[in-house]
Structures are given as structure tokens and as C-alpha cells.
């Protein structure tokens, strides 16, 4: 039954994708200008061509490394702050104004400031970390606080220390929140890293490829470079889906 549901879910996903491509095709026919909206098959053709170049391989690898670095730093920072904020109301209160300011700051403002402060290759990573770590910290803190109060009272009644209860009850209870935070952080990291690359234009980057194609008015190529970013995002989503299922089995 679950397997049949899974197949039906995937079939519905493919159907939705087919509808989007069909609408895209109709729109491109209606507009009738490749420079505004190229047809899907033209983008696919351009993607195959671009993806076979050495420039693309170097750009894809460099962007993937920046995204992973931004994600790793965001997770480390967000986990540490989330853990501290979830364990102590006082720490949470002290962190709250800073996190709110960071979360409310527009991504372009962060990228523009980073352009002033850092070299081109660091700008995307810095910007992504600033945007992603508050999301992780807030999710993790909420997860730590959402632990079953009955289990906490049980640990208390048996004289288990607060520190032990934190790491053996609150942290495992927060795992679904941590996975959700990681999924949000990785999605945000790809988006902000590519946006940062578009503006900072490091030597090897998907964002630089997009910017070069835009300046040459090669709209199909802009789509092709953007598709590479979508692929990175889809790969990380698939990894997190699998991880979330394993964690759910482990904590149930």
C-alpha cells in the first residue's frame, strides 16, 4: 500500500513537471522570441552543450564546494547557538535581537556589504552563512524545547543531571527539527551562493556563468546555468529525504 502510494506520488510529480514544461513551451511559442523566453528543447540542447565544457565542470565543482562550505558553517554555528538557546531561556533572550536583525536583513544588502569586505570567492559563502545560520539556530532551539516534558520529569525524578537530560533526551527529541533545519539551510545556501556569485563573479562559479550569459544576451544559456543550480538543490533534497526517513525510524 505504501509502495503504491509512493509510485502514485512520483507519477503525480512527473505529471506536474510535464504540465510546467507544456506551459513553458506554449509561452515560448506565444512570445516567439528566444531572447525573452527560449523553448524548453532549446534550453536542453544548450544545457547539454554547456555541461560538456571544462568551464562548466570547474564552475559546478566550485559552486558545490562553496555551497557545502556555507552549509557546514551554518549548521555548526546554528547547532551551537540553537543548543545554547534551547537549553537556556536567558541565552535565547540574549541571542534573540541579533538573530532577528540578521533574519530581517535583505539578502542583497548582505551580498553588497560582503562585496566591500571580502574577495570574490568568499562573498557567496559569507552571504549564505549569514542568511542560513539563524534559520538553523531557531529550528534547533525550538526542537530542544519541544522535548516531551514527561520524559524530562522522569529523568529529574531519577536524579539524572540537566546536562545528561539535554544530550540524551532533548537533543535526540530535536533530531526531526535538526533535519528540517538542515534541509532549509542547504536550500537557502544554494540560492544565496549562486546569487552571491552572480554579483561577485569569482573565476569558477555557476553564478559567473549565468552573469556572462546574461551579458551576452544568451537567455538559453542563462537557463542552462540556472538548471545546474536546480540540479544541486535536487540532489541535496534527495539526500535529506533519505536522511529524514532514517532519523524518523531511529527516534520513533
Amino acid at each position: 500500500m505504501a509502495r503504491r502510494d509512493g509510485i502514485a506520488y512520483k507519477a503525480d510529480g512527473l505529471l506536474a513537471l510535464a504540465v510546467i514544461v507544456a506551459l513553458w513551451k506554449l509561452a515560448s511559442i506565444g512570445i516567439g522570441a528566444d531572447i525573452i523566453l527560449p523553448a524548453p528543447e532549446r534550453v536542453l540542447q544548450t544545457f547539454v552543450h554547456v555541461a560538456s565544457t571544462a568551464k562548466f565542470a570547474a564552475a559546478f565543482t566550485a559552486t558545490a564546494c562553496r555551497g557545502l562550505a556555507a552549509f557546514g558553517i551554518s549548521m555548526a554555528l546554528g547547532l551551537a547557538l540553537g543548543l545554547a538557546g534551547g537549553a537556556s531561556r536567558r541565552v535565547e533572550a540574549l541571542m534573540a535581537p541579533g538573530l532577528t536583525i540578521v533574519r530581517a536583513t535583505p539578502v542583497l544588502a548582505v551580498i553588497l556589504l560582503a562585496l566591500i569586505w571580502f574577495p570574490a570567492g568568499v562573498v557567496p559563502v559569507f552571504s549564505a552563512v549569514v542568511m542560513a545560520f539563524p534559520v538553523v539556530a531557531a529550528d534547533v532551539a525550538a526542537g530542544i524545547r519541544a522535548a516531551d516534558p514527561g520524559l524530562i520529569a522522569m529523568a529529574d525524578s531519577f536524579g539524572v543531571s540537566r546536562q545528561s537530560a539535554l544530550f540524551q533526551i532533548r537533543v535526540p527529541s530535536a533530531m526531526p527539527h535538526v533535519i528540517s533545519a538542515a534541509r532549509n539551510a542547504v536550500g537557502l545556501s544554494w540560492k544565496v551562493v549562486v546569487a552571491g556569485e552572480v554579483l561577485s563573479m569569482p573565476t569558477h562559479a555557476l553564478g559567473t556563468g549565468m552573469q556572462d550569459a546574461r551579458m551576452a544576451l544568451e537567455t538559453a544559456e542563462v537557463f542552462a546555468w540556472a538548471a545546474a543550480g536546480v540540479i544541486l538543490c535536487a540532489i541535496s533534497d534527495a539526500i535529506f529525504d533519505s536522511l529524514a526517513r532514517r532519523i524518523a525510524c531511529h527516534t520513533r
Partner: protein
Amino acid sequence: MSYTIKQLEKHYDSISVLAGLDLAIPDGAITVVLGPSGCGKTTLLNILAGLDDDYSGSIDGFSDGRASYVFQEDRLLPWRSARDNIAFVLRPLMEAGLARRSSWQALVAVGLEDQADSRPAAMSGGQRRRVALARAFAYPSDFLLLDEPFSSLDLKTRIAVMDLFVDVRAKDGRSAVVVTHDVREAIYLADRIAVLSERPARVLDVFDMSLDRSERSYTSGAAVELETRLYRTILS
């Protein structure tokens, strides 16, 4: 060790929950506190366990000792095996190897050694209750506190788990305070029954059990007279 509760009072804001409760708990016996739902039985246990220290009166014996608490729910860590759930509460008091050995012995005592590596989700309700009991018995405490520990079980499982509790407790010898609203359960388990009033709770009467355990079964008529007296006290 003697356990005496004297003039115990507890308020939640303006609501009086316990009103001058007096009770002597015999050493090495099972005392059942029988009272209606919401009368303050769980509050009483929380005070005896040291989880609530905002009260007036005295709880001699309890405040100096360590409690093993069996809650209404199993309160087992879902991500840990039965054995590791028990070891979790033992670790602050002993090294890891001894905690694991003690956990195993506790599971053997409740007949669950074959479920030692199972997680709570893979066990039946009765098995989870037995793990919660094993955890309480394994913990090196001075007394046992049980909050309606069998009420979530069906009758057959309840009787089996209650028999197990009575047997293991008799070998163990620790004093136990069990709270329940179920008259038959009280008769089945108790050496002494204290009947509480509606909230604010005070002790209405105390019954020392003279019936042999063999006469207390759910199908025996021997306990009818005591059952009637208990109902009269509760409904008075």
C-alpha cells in the same frame, strides 16, 4: 526507615489540593492511596518524590531518601532499547558496565530478557509497563512511588503485571506507595489502603489488609465485604 506524612498542605494559587493530610506508611509494605480522579493523588506523589517542594507540613523519611517513580505513562525513551532505558537512570549512580548488568538483571526479574534490545515501539503495552517497573526496581532507591501504574492495561494484562509487581516487590522489600482510583486494584495490591476525600484531599479512613493474597482475586467473593466498606467510605 519509617515514613510519616503529617499535616501536608498544598495550594495551586487559591485552590487547595491537599488539606492537612496525615498518613503513616508501614516499612517494607505496599500502601495504596485510593481516591477519586483529580483529588490530588499525583500531587502527593510528586511531593514525596521531591519533584514539588512548594508545600507545608512534613514528609518524614521521604525527604531523606531516594525514590523510584513509576508514572501513569511508560515514559521510556523511544530511541533506546529496553536495557538502555534502564541503564539511562542508573548511569549517574554507577559505572557503565555495572549499569548494563543491573539493567539486564532487572529485565530478567520481570521476564523480559528476550526484549532487552527491543525499542518501546516494538513492545506491547504490558511489556512497556514491565520495563517501567524494571527501571524502578533496578534504581537503587529507598522507596517506590507508583502513579496509577496499571490503569492503561486491559484486565488480563493488568492482573499479570500486578502479580509480577507484587512478587518482585516482595523479594525486593522496599516500601511502596501506589495511588489509584480503582477499588479492586487497591484490594489486589495493598498491605494498607488509605482512602482520600475529594479535593482538597485528606485521609478519610485507613484499612489494614488481613485478607490472604489468594482471596483477593477478581473472581473471589472473599473481598466483597471490604470492597463494600471501601465504596461506603468513598461515597460518604
